[in-house]
């Protein structure tokens, strides 16, 4: 634009480009979040009311077995599911990156779980894992009479079956993100390492994987967010059972929000989740932000 210094207009353009995001953030996200926090301090049932009750809902929450069990379950599930999905997704991405003829087919095979609604795929998993007609029965039918695979009906182990299905569902997406990262790596890095005589696996471990930091961060945050919001899977596969053994916080929120018409408690639960996330994320984000500033300064 003649007459304007380019620098100024570009800066302004950058600010302008953030306007939609900022509006959404302030109006939709922050607005809704503050509303949720407010509701958690009221006695709201199915519909919100403004009957202030202080921290009563939080008190109820902390005395609620199911909430406490849900939080523990989430910790176990979350850790295994995030680590497992990252690992499986990365291995799949690396395997698929070896210039295979069937790459497209394989990529779709690993991604298809992501395309399907859990309502029914959860049922398929439930059937397969069910000891009376699933894999256990199949293997026993082959003559291994003592074969035991009844994790889904046992309280101590049911959470691991959710991890299986969770990895099955999410690993494809992680693979896609990692693949995008791998494809973004300069081919000459590979050539250099080959000339240097570094074996392929060592190149991955020491050179390429450390370069995938951004992909790991992206996949890690996406996975963590989906873990915290985990709901469909638990409903479809185990409905939280046996007992409370596969209950999760988001399901607690959802059940109390809709089925149980207890908006106040649901909001208190959601707020607690939010506070937990912020208290974990804030120091990380702060450290990152400082590191970034330091780097750009140099």
């Amino acid at each position, binding site marked *: 634009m003649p007459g304007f210094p380019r620098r100024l207009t570009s800066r302004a353009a950058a600010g302008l480009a953030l306007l939609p995001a900022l509006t959404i953030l302030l109006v939709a996200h922050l607005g809704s979040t503050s509303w949720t926090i407010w509701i958690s301090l009221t006695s709201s049932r199915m519909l919100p009311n403004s009957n202030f009750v202080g921290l009563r809902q939080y008190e109820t929450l902390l005395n609620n077995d199911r909430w406490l069990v849900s939080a523990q379950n989430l910790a176990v599930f979350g850790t295994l599911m995030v680590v497992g999905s990252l690992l499986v997704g990365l291995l799949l991405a690396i395997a698929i990156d070896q210039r295979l003829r069937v790459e497209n087919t394989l990529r779709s095979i690993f991604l298809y779980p992501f395309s399907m609604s859990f309502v029914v795929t959860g049922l398929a998993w439930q059937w397969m894992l069910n000891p009376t007609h699933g894999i256990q029965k199949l293997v026993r039918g082959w003559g291994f009479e003592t074969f035991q695979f009844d994790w889904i009906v046992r309280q101590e182990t049911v959470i691991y079956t959710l991890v299986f299905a969770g990895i099955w569902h999410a690993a494809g997406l992680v693979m896609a993100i990692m693949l995008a990262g791998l494809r973004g790596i300069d081919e000459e890095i590979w*050539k*250099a390492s080959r000339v240097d*005589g570094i074996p392929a696996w060592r190149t991955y471990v020491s*050179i390429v994987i*450390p370069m995938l930091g951004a992909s790991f961060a992206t996949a890690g945050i996406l996975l963590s967010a989906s873990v915290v919001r985990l709901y469909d899977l638990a409903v479809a596969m185990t409905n939280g059972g046996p007992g409370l053994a596969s209950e999760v916080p988001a399901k607690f929120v959802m059940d109390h929000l809709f089925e149980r018409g207890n908006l106040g408690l649901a909001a208190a639960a959601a707020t607690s989740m939010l506070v937990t996330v912020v208290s974990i994320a804030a120091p990380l984000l702060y450290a990152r932000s400082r590191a970034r500033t330091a780097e750009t300064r140099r």
Partner: protein
Amino acid sequence: MERGDVSLNGIKIMFGSVKVLENLDLDVAKSEFLVLLGPSGCGKSTLLNAVAGLIDVKDGQIWIGGRNVTWEEPKDRGIAMVFQSYALYPRMTVRGNMSFGLKVSGTPAAEIARRVEEAAQMLRISDLLDRRPSELSGGQRQRVAIGRALVRKVGVFLFDEPLSNLDAQLRAELRVEIKRLHQQLGATMIYVTHDQIEALTLADRIAVMHGGVIQQLDTPAKIYREPKNRFVASFVGSPAMNFIDGRIEAGATFDGGGLRVPLAGYAFAGNPASGPATLGIRPEHVVTGSDAREGAFDATVELVEPMGADSLVWCRSPGGAAFSMRLPGDTAVRSGDRQRASFPAASLSLFDSTNGKRL
């Protein structure tokens, strides 16, 4: 047949069903600095990658240091390579970058340290050893990349457009550096570039490539003075060679662009012939003013480009053919002037109009 330090016999390379190189032979002598020069897409990088073993050949053999390495892994070929994008491992320090290959191959730590130190001194990057690539400038990065090649202690170095990502000043600086290294190490070097200045300054011999074929393999001087075909003539030299279309009459006179250029003293490749031809002359070979001799003519000056030491003067012959000549930087010639000029036969290049070959 005597084999060079690096020797390619009948190389054929395909990308899928596309033929990139076919039946290519090349011999590089020990301690020679050979430059593969050509426009992008001519197959020069592909050829270099094949020498390194990074691309499989479809047919033919590759010999390095007297061994047939056609089926060898890159690391076993006795080569080191430097890349255009430097290809430094971003998460390792400079020291890590230089020592990683040695570490993996099980070289003793003391030996690694010694070699890294030596290479770093040679390249004057000793201060940078603990930095990461992201903290280095482009020139420093390329030094590190060269250092990573040096520590391999091999006889053959391959450079794949190593200076293309640098700005002009750094390029010149590193060019000298590489030349110095070559003299110091006495190693065989194959160097790919599309920059003819690099080629002319660095090379013992240049292989000019086009369309997957080596057009000419000669010393820089020979390539400059006696290009084997019109492609080489036009690709090498800056400012570019002038071309005027016409005919050769009775093997003695070139007639074209309104000029009659006597050819007595031109070394014909074969028997002097008659027929359509293209005359080529470099701007600096045009003889001007009172030095103009046989076949002299008056050209009209159209444009003067001062280039410091010289000025490039764009003219038009009486018959309308455009050409340029090089005059001293302080020339008083201005556009619209008339300039006496002649084309001395000894500096000419004549090409067959049909196949572009040197006559």
